[in-house]
């Protein structure tokens, strides 16, 4: 049954105010020219209708709490409920961000501790918690790299090198920072082509952005050499920490030669994805970039915790948020990190890697084509369905939809772009072996069905609230908002 739009359930007058003071009297000081003449087109529904509508909508979602969700590069691990509950204690939730520091020692101590933990796991010497997602962390990182060069009078360094497998935010960020992007290719085993790198570095090089393990699900073995090449050319190294889950407690980005790292707390540290966010893209840097860290930072002053701001950090790249980043997300990550502890963190990377290699082995043994068969998987791995697609016409997208019918969220599809018909599969450490076995079986079943009856696979999904959607229509006949004047326009009748 289709859930009607909340607007379709609206009836004018449903929420007529009973105890409202006369709005007119309250606003009789405002000149008429400023007053809204039209009613804002918000729905008029009862509290029950709202609760029922959004409860029903929620049930239309797949989520970690309901389904195995091996979405590569997204680290869809269990989001501990304790983190949510503790971050929502009234003592954190019901406070204005501009409460004086003396009234904020509890929250400041948590944030300060978190900064220290992040230093420990990256090997870096300075941290700023303010970036609100990975992409903003990248922005902060590249902006710091730029500021560093400029501070040394080296204004010509405007090129950012990214491997072809890089996540789209990397090149997009470089552009946001006013840099030019130079792409370098990946070798046959998934490592960066160091020769190609050597060709492109020079006095114009601001730095390189790398993910390690890369988005290809393999550890970049030549990282030492890469660092030497880039540093040798005067550039700096940026670590995109989206894949930190793979090496947590096993290798430190600083030791690999990186100068700055962002960490997606909503991946490695299990803060919720919330259907698209909020996340957190905290950044950590070596000492030479510390002066440029975005503010505010939590420091210590007069025996208490304090915000470090413009006057403390005159070289800072500045502020990136109106107050203090996504503070509530930071608290959730802090709770999770304290629950894990040092040993728990190593277990995270250990079992994430175990699960990925196990599932990769199961699929390889079942005849699926693993993208880098001579490599260990990191916490994720890629299979390519190119052969199956050629033989049966059943594509990676068809597999994705058929998995939905079998009760699994699909892996990431068609990313990274350089592996054709690929699925990027990240099981995470919080899934049990039984879940992986069932997923592998589902993949085999779909493959077998593809061979027997490709058309049947292409009909999937059959069990979801809607079946395959017309993306072309969505982009051509734009329908981005509900129009009360013409409810029939979108088929919402």
């Amino acid at each position, binding site marked *: 049954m289709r859930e009607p739009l909340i607007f379709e359930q609206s009836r004018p007058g449903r929420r007529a105010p009973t105890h409202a003071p006369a709005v007119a009297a309250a606003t009789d000081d405002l000149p008429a020219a400023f007053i809204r003449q039209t009613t804002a087109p918000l729905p008029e529904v009862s509290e029950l209708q709202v609760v029922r509508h959004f409860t029903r909508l929620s049930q239309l979602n797949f989520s970690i709490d309901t389904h195995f969700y091996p979405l590569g590069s997204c680290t869809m691990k269990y989001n501990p409920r304790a983190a949510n509950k503790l971050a929502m204690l009234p003592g954190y939730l019901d406070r204005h961000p501009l409460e004086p520091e003396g009234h904020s020692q509890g929250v400041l101590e948590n944030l300060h501790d978190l900064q220290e933990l992040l230093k420990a796991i990256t090997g870096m010497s300075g941290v700023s918690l303010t970036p609100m997602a990975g992409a903003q962390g990248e922005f902060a990182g590249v902006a710091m790299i730029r500021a560093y060069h400029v501070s040394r009078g080296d204004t010509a360094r405007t090129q950012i090198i990214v491997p072809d497998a890089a996540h789209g935010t990397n090149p997009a960020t470089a552009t946001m920072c006013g840099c030019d992007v130079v792409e370098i290719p990946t070798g046959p085993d998934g490592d960066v082509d160091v020769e190609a790198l050597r060709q492109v570095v020079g006095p114009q090089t601001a730095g390189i952005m790398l993910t390690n393990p890369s988005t290809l699900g393999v550890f970049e073995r030549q990282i030492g050499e890469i660092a030497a090449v880039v540093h040798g050319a005067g550039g700096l190294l940026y670590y995109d920490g989206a894949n930190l889950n793979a090496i947590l407690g096993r290798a430190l980005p600083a030791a*690999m030669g990186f100068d700055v790292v962002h960490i997606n707390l909503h991946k490695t540290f299990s803060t919720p994805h919330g259907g698209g966010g909020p996340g957190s893209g905290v950044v950590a840097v070596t000492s030479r970039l510390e002066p440029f860290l975005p503010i505010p930072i939590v420091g210590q002053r007069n025996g208490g915790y304090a915000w470090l701001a413009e006057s403390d950090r005159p070289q800072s790249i500045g502020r990136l948020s109106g107050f203090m980043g996504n503070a509530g997300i930071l608290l959730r990550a802090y709770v999770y990190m304290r*629950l894990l502890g040092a040993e728990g963190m190593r277990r995270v990377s250990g079992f994430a890697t175990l699960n990925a290699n196990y599932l990769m082995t199961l699929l390889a043994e079942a005849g699926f084509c693993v993208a880098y068969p001579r490599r260990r998987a990191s916490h994720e791995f890629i299979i390519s369905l190119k052969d199956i697609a050629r033989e049966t016409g059943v594509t990676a997208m068809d597999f994705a939809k058929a998995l939905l019918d079998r009760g699994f969220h699909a892996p990431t599809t068609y990313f990274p772009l350089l592996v054709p018909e690929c699925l990027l599969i990240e099981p995470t450490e919080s899934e049990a072996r039984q879940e992986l076995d069932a997923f592998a079986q589902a993949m085999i079943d779909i493959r077998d069905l593809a061979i027997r009856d490709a058309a049947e696979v292409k009909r999937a999904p059959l069990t979801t609230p809607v079946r395959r959607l017309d993306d072309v229509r969505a982009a051509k006949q734009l329908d981005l908002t509900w129009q009360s004047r013409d409810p029939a326009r979108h088929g919402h009748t």
Partner: protein
Amino acid sequence: MPFIPHTPDETAAMLAVIGTASIENLFDEIPANLKVDGLPGVPAGLSEPAITRLMVERARRNVSSLCFLGAGAYEHHIPAAVWEIATRGEFYSAYTPYQAEASQGTLQLIYEYQSMLAGLTGLDVSNASLYDGATAFAEACLMAVRAARQSRSRRVLVPRFLNPVWRKVARSLLAGQNVELVELAASGGRTDLSALAAHEGEDYAALCISLPNFLGGLEAVDELTDWAHARGMLVIAACNPTALALLKPPGEWGSKGADIACGEGQPLGIPLSSGGPYFGFITCRQALVRQMPGRIVGGTLDVEGRPGFTLTLQAREQHIRRSKATSNICTNQGLMVTAATIYLSLLGSEGLRRVAAESHANTRALVSALTSIGGVSAPYSPYFHETVLTLPRPVAPVLQKLATAGILGGFDLSADYPELGHAVLVCATELRTAPDIEAYRQALANVLGVAVAA
């Protein structure tokens, strides 16, 4: 072993399938010199009861005061249903809705959100959120620079009384692309229309108009909009969304309406939360939609002709367009949008109008209570639900003493706007009662050493 389900037997069996002896072996591609054995700076794990105790104790160390402070974040009532529903696992633990068929809940909700925000601002389309008000403003500037057909400039005119932190954030974010903010002079608590003359003949991509402005003041939106449009600039509206329940929406400003609206979504059901997460909203005219940053959800049909929703216009975004994308934003503030959509549904237009009106009425009551104290005056009007008081003495020590008395007395304007004198920005939302206001009055009188009637 928190959050890891493997039994020792299972681990052994899985390693056997992989064909290796230990988990350690799985890391054998990491060069030995890069490996670490442990994390000395990280303490041992805590049990859930222990972390609970720690977090509860630290929460107690935060002091919460009676709040008369706004300055960009407002303490409104949040109906209990908002977060009880928003934190349901199916919303809380889902990713960005890439697999549309498995994400219709989130997608329909975002579509409803887009409709509400477009409606509130009086514009055609909305995206699915940006990080916060400050970054939304910066993105609006970038968008305007890209979209302004009649301008080749990378400069945006901004009013002096636009939120000063937003201006700082925008500077951080725009510096790389050489987009420049040029300040419009103000007087009497709002943009000085006569100062426009100084910019006549200059090329700007856009003019930003803030409503209410940072001082709570109401700018001459119609005149400013028409002035900018007449000179080929786009108009960016920076608004408080609660205010738009009562005040003329950007889409109706001047003769043609603003082109882009942006703002901080926090007042719409998001807890103050010591600073975040909040969310930024951005809406625009239909013609500009392809310049919009961030996710957008659209309606479409499935293979059986049933209506459904999907992410659309993705060619604007980083995962498709990479270095040519409209923005680098990927993860946005989805769960906050979930809460805001529930909030707006619970309140409806009537409810939101009431919140706005009651907040405004309370601030008026506050102003009249506090200006009854000798030496305190309220120089600027009209304002909406927040305004400036001038005190007979420097603000900082007064606020500090009020804080000791449990009152968060407002925002000290003297650093950002020294020209205003001993000025403090105050706000009383619908949650402040008459006794609260009286408590502030007594405390302020006390601090100022002025006798007032009890």
